[in-house]
């Protein structure tokens, strides 16, 4: 390693991307926490009358509120996938040509080599997402869509609003509410696993590369080694 490295500031994450990240992060934490409570509420042996409290109703209310917030934030993010810069566009997640697919594959192999197995010590130089990260974000976008569809399908029968009613067709595909709920519950673990790995890797990259990985999602700026 050279004794001095000159870095260049690059504006990578645009405001809508950063805002989506933090709104989504808050919503996901809220949804996971309330979802797990709804799935397995804590035990109280109590002599209270039901009319005296409504805490479980509030937990569900928080779950639905966070879910709607996440849904609308996601819709804005999808819009930005067609409007934003090259790091925000859909092509940053899904290869849109054979060459892009090959590049993503090559990058993923490099990540495996450098970051995971750590056979090569020198970090890879890239500005936006690396190939493997892009793939994992694509998977989490799909999981988000899955949760929105199954969640609104479960919500639909008790709603008077037209929006949830657009998703009623999902339930018969699964064969009933019980199965939709089972899958909606199972998918929470995709988000839990993603969050654990995502937070760890952000710290890992920041420590081993010093490119401002963590601050970039607040400021939008990353540092790239000047050649």
């Amino acid at each position, binding site marked *: *390693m050279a004794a001095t490295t000159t870095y260049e500031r690059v504006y990578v994450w645009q405001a809508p991307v950063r805002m989506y990240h933090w709104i989504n992060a808050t919503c996901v934490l809220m949804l996971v926490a309330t979802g*797990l409570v709804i*799935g*397995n*509420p*804590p*035990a*109280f*042996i*109590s*002599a*209270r009358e*039901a*009319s*005296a*409290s*409504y*805490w*479980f*109703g509030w*937990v569900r209310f928080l779950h639905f509120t966070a879910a709607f917030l996440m849904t609308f934030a996601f819709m804005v993010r999808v819009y930005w996938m067609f409007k934003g810069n090259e790091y925000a566009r859909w092509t940053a997640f899904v290869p849109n040509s054979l060459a892009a697919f090959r590049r993503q594959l090559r990058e993923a192999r490099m990540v495996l080599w450098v970051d*995971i197995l*750590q056979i090569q*010590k020198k*970090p890879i130089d890239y500005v936006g997402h690396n190939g493997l990260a892009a793939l994992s974000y694509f998977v989490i976008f799909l999981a988000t869509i899955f949760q929105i569809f199954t969640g609104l399908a479960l919500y639909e*029968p*008790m709603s008077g609003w037209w929006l949830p009613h657009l998703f*009623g*067709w999902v*339930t*018969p595909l699964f*064969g*009933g*509410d*019980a*199965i939709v*709920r*089972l899958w909606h*519950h*199972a998918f*929470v*673990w995709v988000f*839990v*696993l993603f969050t*654990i*790995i995502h937070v*760890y890797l952000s710290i*890992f990259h920041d*420590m*081993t590369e*010093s490119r401002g990985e963590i601050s970039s999602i607040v400021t939008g700026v990353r540092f790239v080694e000047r050649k």
Partner: protein
Amino acid sequence: MGKRLTIWEQAQLLGHSRREFLQFCAWLAAAAGIEASQVGQIVHALETKPRIPVIWFHFQECTCCSESFIRSSHPIVSDIILDKISLDYTQTLQAASGAACEKSWKDVVKNQAGKYLMLVEGSIPTEADGVYCCINGRTALDTVKEAAAGAKAIVAWGSCASNGCIQAARPNPTGATPVHKIITDKPIIKVPGCPPIGEVMAATIVHLLTFDTIPQLDRVGRPMAFYSRRVHDTCYRRPSYDAGLFVESWDDDNARRGYCLYKMGCRGPVTYNACSVTKWNNGVSYPIQSGHGCIGCSEENFWDNGPFYNHLTNFPGFGIEATADKIGVAAAVVATAGLVGHAVLTSVRKREIINEKLEK
């Protein structure tokens, strides 16, 4: 066959007075959940329309649907439907047997093509060419196809005819199949439940007979009037659910206080039926009121979505006692262990880089 009589004409033949006929019309309206102001419409329909012939088939079933039907809380309604209105064939209850019994439905199919209602109780086995259910030497598969050809509409009684029910549970050895997967060119009204509520059955028939139209159906073909709400949404224990007051075990104080059975595996939140409104046995009770959770008997594949007494059901493909949460926690533990290992590896392999950057 001569001219088919209207119900009013038939009632007169049987010696009923006009007053009794009007009473009967009011019963029908009540059973079908029709407003009092529309009783006149029913009277008019029964005076002018010839009665609709009905044939009721029994295939792979336990007869609980029939049992439920004859116990509907307005016995007069079911009596009149069974005896006087239109039931031309139902092998369980009719007096005729053998060849005479078979003749009765064949006559209807032959002479009333396009006019009769076909009621199906039970699923239809399709494995081994359908030999698992034979009546009079013919498979149910043959019978249902022949009888459905001229039917005006089909009513699928119970979960067997609506979605296969218990005999269609994995691995479904007889290939038990609901009616709608065999007959695809006729309107089919599903009245699921194991059994369905007697009043719901009676009301569905009343609607078809008096209005001669298909009642409003939901996405999977169930009458909206009875299957548009979850058992949970109309349950009298719902306030306990919202208050987070749950039964934790069958013999705890919470069970005695009648709190919500959600954690005991109650399927009320995922089951569409009228149980908490109409109830059973002349409105005496329903499972949750009797202290037992709903098992979701009117839902597709309820038999396979077990265990009945756990809220979190087994996750398909992972064997017994593998809930989504157990699998998820295991995956999170493995992932965390992997990350810890990776962190150790990083601190060894990339120590120079990290140190250099920290010390400048």
